[in-house]
């Protein structure tokens, strides 16, 4: 059981924030990738780089998700919620 300590999750949330900020800002920096060369499989750099960003940002978001699951669980007590949601003790995200 985690203590109601406000500092304990802020580190995790900071990492989450950085991961997501990279995922949002990187695709918007068009100057990084607006060139034809080097080509890959016939695709100009501009195009294959953006395709490459899809799995990269997906991975960043996934890591952020894993971190957030733990941080969210710790945060619950801070807001006067039981440490675990009532009857629903399944791991978050599991299918029925």
């Amino acid at each position, binding site marked *: 059981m985690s203590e109601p300590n406000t500092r304990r999750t802020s580190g995790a949330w900071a990492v989450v924030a950085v*991961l*997501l*900020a990279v*995922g*949002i800002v990187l*695709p*918007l*920096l*068009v*100057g990084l990738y*607006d*060139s*034809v060369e080097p*080509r890959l*499989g*016939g*695709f*100009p750099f*501009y*195009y294959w780089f*953006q*395709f490459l*960003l*899809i*799995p990269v*940002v*997906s*991975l*960043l*978001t*996934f890591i*952020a*998700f894993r971190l*957030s*699951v733990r941080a*969210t669980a710790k*945060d*619950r007590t801070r*807001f*006067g*919620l*039981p440490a*675990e*949601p*009532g*009857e*629903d*003790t399944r791991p*978050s*995200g599991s*299918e*029925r």
Partner: protein
Amino acid sequence: MHTVQLVIFLFFFLLVTVMGFMASRWRRADTLDSLDEWGLGGRGFGTFISWFLIGGDIYTAYTFIAVPATLYAGSVVGFFAVPYTIVLYPIIFIFLPRFWSVSHRHGYVTPADFVRGRFDSKPLALAVALTGLLATMPYIALQLVGIQVVLEIMGIGGGENASFLEKDLPLFIAFAVLAAYTYASGLRAPALIAFVKDTLIYVVILVAVFYLPSQLGGWGHIFDAASKSFDLFNKENADAIKAVPPQAQGKGILPPPAVHWAYASLALGSALALFMYPHSLTGVLASKNRSVIRRNAALLPAYSFLLGLLALLGFAAIAAGVKVDNPQLSVPALFDKMFPGWFAGIAFAAIAIGALVPAAIMSIAAANLWTRNIYKAFINPAATPKQEATQSKLVSLVVKFGALIFVLGLGTQDAINFQLLGGVWILQTMPALVFSLYTRWFHRWALLAGWAVGMVYGTLTAYNVPVPGKPGSHFGGPLQLVPFTQTKGYIALTAFVINVLVAVVLTLVLRALKVANGTDETSPADYHADAGDRGVEDVLEGEPGTAPTTG
């Protein structure tokens, strides 16, 4: 007329129509008003099937028609749809879980519900609801265009010399089908036909993005052909391009530095806007618990990959030698040219059904917004369920008429502008909706004023953008110079920044004057509650994760 195509097309179309009407008879007990019918994206299936169904909802006329058309037309910012769908998911990750929690604690099913509860302000909730209604119309218009172009390629409707009525015949058919379908079956129909629709869509996408490039000499050749064609155009029109300062652009396959912000702001603005739409937010509420949203945010980008390849079909059409005046026809014309008749028929059915379903969902979501947040809140608080159902049905028709007016009034040459115009409006509800998930610092009247200024600025600016080559025309594009700069940006995002500035300044003033800011009915814990917590009701029949349509 293309007989084989038409027969196959009609076969699939009739099949899903019959299924749709059967759906309405099958489990009739519920009222149309019940938004709990929503769970389109997932209905208790496992991860794979949910993923499959959600993906089917993402591919609409936006991905099949409008996005490839911008590339076909040589727009240097046309590929923005890909970064749009990339940055979308980290953004979802941030604020949607809080919205999920507070909505489930308080039984909110629309964005306007939350705003009313948080600020105790009917005018602000009304503004949010009206914006949702208005912004949904051009979005539906885009889907109508999708059905229209498919019908046109199959030879329904007139050619160049056709009369006005004949020319718009495909559009009226598309409208009539959509209206009849939604009116009769409500949301059950799209839920039941999802499997047929999604199977068709995936088959067509996979064949299109793998078979077509191989027939056209590979992607390298496709890019070269597009590039060559644009260079030739720029050479032939060099004088005209130079004559339109200051940010005149020729055609091209990548954006020059002058339009980098245009590209980035289109992507960011579209991503921020998507989850303000009533149909998207309501879809999110159907997910089983709050972490499903975050997990899906990590899994969904796989769809962006196919979306990007579909977008490049615009270049494939150039490589295949497709010549059409209306760029929206490029992908259907490409299918017509490259596929055997029977498969083209399947592809056209997939596009049309893939446009019909989201259009139906959007119009019903908008209609429910009307019934819940305007009709019941202001006009008839004591409405019976029957009256509510009647209202929803009628307003879903009104919304579709609105969409029809957008199509007729704005022309269909650049259908992506419909979606971008909707974004200009809907993004103005973001401060009231998203900022207030985190803070009650903003004053409700300041948020309302910011919204009003953003709406007026955005609408006027968009109105004053002429269609390229037609001075004096209106609503010709999503980009305009950002005030005090020489850089073009997406009008929605500029209006949003102005909106926030107004809201901040007026909040400082109103707080200094100690003007009452209403009673907040939510508490901090509400924003963290999860499924299983006390007071968390299944607002909608709790089902595993859903995502809304991007189209």
